[in-house]
């Protein structure tokens, strides 16, 4: 009975490879749009090319999946109706939401981005999907990985130039291990530098790589950096502050406050902020009046040991012995006393 029902249902279902509803194919559109000189002059005086490079489109990720009207849905009649756009940017801003019909998850993420916030403020230059991904020639954005960051560099030139000289940026094109822009700032829900909740996650972001034993071993780096940071005053404070509290309420040094942000250098490079010679200056950014002795109050991510911090290690060892010894002695005396009282009764 159940089987019959199942089979009937199955057979009555439409075939999975349904033919798409009739729509003009790419060749129809290219009948006009393959003309290289085709363009329209907008009221702003800008010229908008209407030529479509079919080769580029065919090579794009959508080349064998979409046809023109999947995105240009409103182009239903030929010749097309007049469009209300006065500038090229008007056109881009009006069309970028076409992507969300398929890429809904990523579109939704962009609503949380610093870019969308700019758009909300009516910053018409705020980037939309096509500004980063392109339109007809869309290629996988992360192949090669360096391409992601180079995309950001189109607008964020200054930051990229600084980053390119950093210990990470220098190896951007040589290795996929180093973080590019999106590894820290994310891609669709791009976090801006003044996003407090994102700033507070800095130790977590850095730890994603710097606590990865296999990855750090490749470069001879210690993975104790997170634990030693959290064990000390700064890291403890950072780990305890709720995500909601503004950073200003209690200033605390995050990874980037000592190591720098886009300009992060190797710890032993002359320009490094955490090089011994530069430490007083780095500490003084928060600890006004810090002297030459002050930086040694921080154990430079080392675990206390006889070699690295003998005094700290020694004091800890002293208490590790004293406390159990003391408590055992007192407990013994209490038990003996109690026993004597019981016996005497």
């Amino acid at each position, binding site marked *: 009975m159940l089987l019959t029902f199942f089979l009937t249902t199955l057979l009555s279902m439409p075939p999975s490879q349904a033919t798409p509803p009739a729509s003009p194919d790419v060749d129809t559109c290219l009948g006009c749009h393959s003309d290289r000189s085709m363009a329209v002059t907008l009221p702003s005086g800008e010229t908008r090319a209407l030529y479509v490079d079919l080769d580029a489109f065919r090579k794009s990720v959508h080349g064998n999946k979409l046809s023109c009207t999947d995105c240009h849905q409103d182009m239903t009649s030929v010749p097309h109706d007049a469009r209300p756009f006065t500038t090229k940017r008007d056109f881009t801003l009006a069309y970028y939401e076409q992507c969300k019909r398929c890429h809904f998850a990523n579109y939704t993420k962009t609503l949380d981005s610093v870019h969308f916030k700019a758009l909300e403020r009516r910053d018409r230059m705020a980037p939309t999907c096509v500004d980063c991904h392109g339109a007809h020639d869309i290629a996988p954005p992360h192949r090669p990985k360096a391409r992601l960051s180079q995309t950001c560099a189109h607008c964020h030139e200054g930051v990229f130039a600084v980053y390119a000289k950093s210990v990470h940026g220098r190896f951007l094109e040589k290795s996929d291990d180093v973080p590019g822009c999106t590894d820290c700032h994310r891609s669709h829900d791009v976090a801006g530098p003044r996003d407090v909740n994102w700033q507070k996650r800095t130790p977590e972001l850095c730890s994603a790589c710097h606590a990865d034993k296999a990855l750090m071993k490749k470069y001879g780096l210690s993975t104790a950096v997170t634990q030693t940071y959290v064990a000390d*005053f700064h890291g403890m404070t950072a780990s305890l502050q709720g995500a909601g509290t503004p950073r200003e309420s209690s200033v605390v040094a995050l990874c980037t406050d000592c190591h720098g942000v886009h300009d992060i250098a190797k710890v032993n490079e002359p320009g490094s902020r955490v090089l011994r010679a530069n430490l007083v200056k780095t500490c003084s950014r928060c600890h006004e009046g810090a002297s030459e002795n002050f930086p040694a*109050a921080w154990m430079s991510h080392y675990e206390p040991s006889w070699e690295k911090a003998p005094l*700290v290690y020694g004091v800890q060892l002293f*208490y590790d012995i004293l406390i159990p010894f003391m408590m055992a002695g007192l407990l013994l005396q209490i038990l*003996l006393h109690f026993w004597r009282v019981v016996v005497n009764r």
Partner: protein
Amino acid sequence: MSTYFTRFTVRQRTEHVLVMSLFILLSVTGLPQKYFEAPWARWMIDVLGGIDRIRWFHRAAGLSFTAMTAFHLMFAIGSVASGRSPLSIVPNRKDFTDAIQTLQYYLGRAEAPAQFDRFDYRQKFEYWGLVLGAVVVISTGLILYFPILFTRLFPGELVPAAKVAHSNEGLMAFLVVILWHIYNAHLNPDVFPFDKTIFTGKISLERMHHEHPLELARLKQIQDIEEP
């Protein structure tokens, strides 16, 4: 109607109430900082209003404790210097022999426990433990409070060493109070449930016979004591 002796002055009783309150406040705000990664510590920090507030209270209580300790020590030094102090709290050779004899008595190897004067060896141990512990937590606490000032004169490595010393000394003090002081002042069958002397300042003749016979003998030489 039993006879009572005045054991503690109003100043001493006030000091005890103060040190008790500050000790509780310092433990409640200090231990969660030492074990901040533990879930119970996170919960306490949340409940008390966050790490910034907990630090503020810990420092305020610490400064009060510092002022109190300074007052106590100045008073003690003053009374010793002016010859008014009986020096009855100062440890001496008898305390060591008392301790050995008492332990032997507990083990059944001595006929009777040691006889004590005004303070027994356990009380002296606790008093000097508190004074010594106070010196450690106050000095290291001030280093942690004013690291910039401190490192103008001293090496930086003393700061993390001070942190280790401060938190361990605090933990030890907490454990000693929880185990030793709570036993001696509350759970000890001799005083159970509560030794009120430090709050009322009074101690009964019966307890004087039992706990401080040497002091009682001294007192009898200088004043008339009516035995019931």
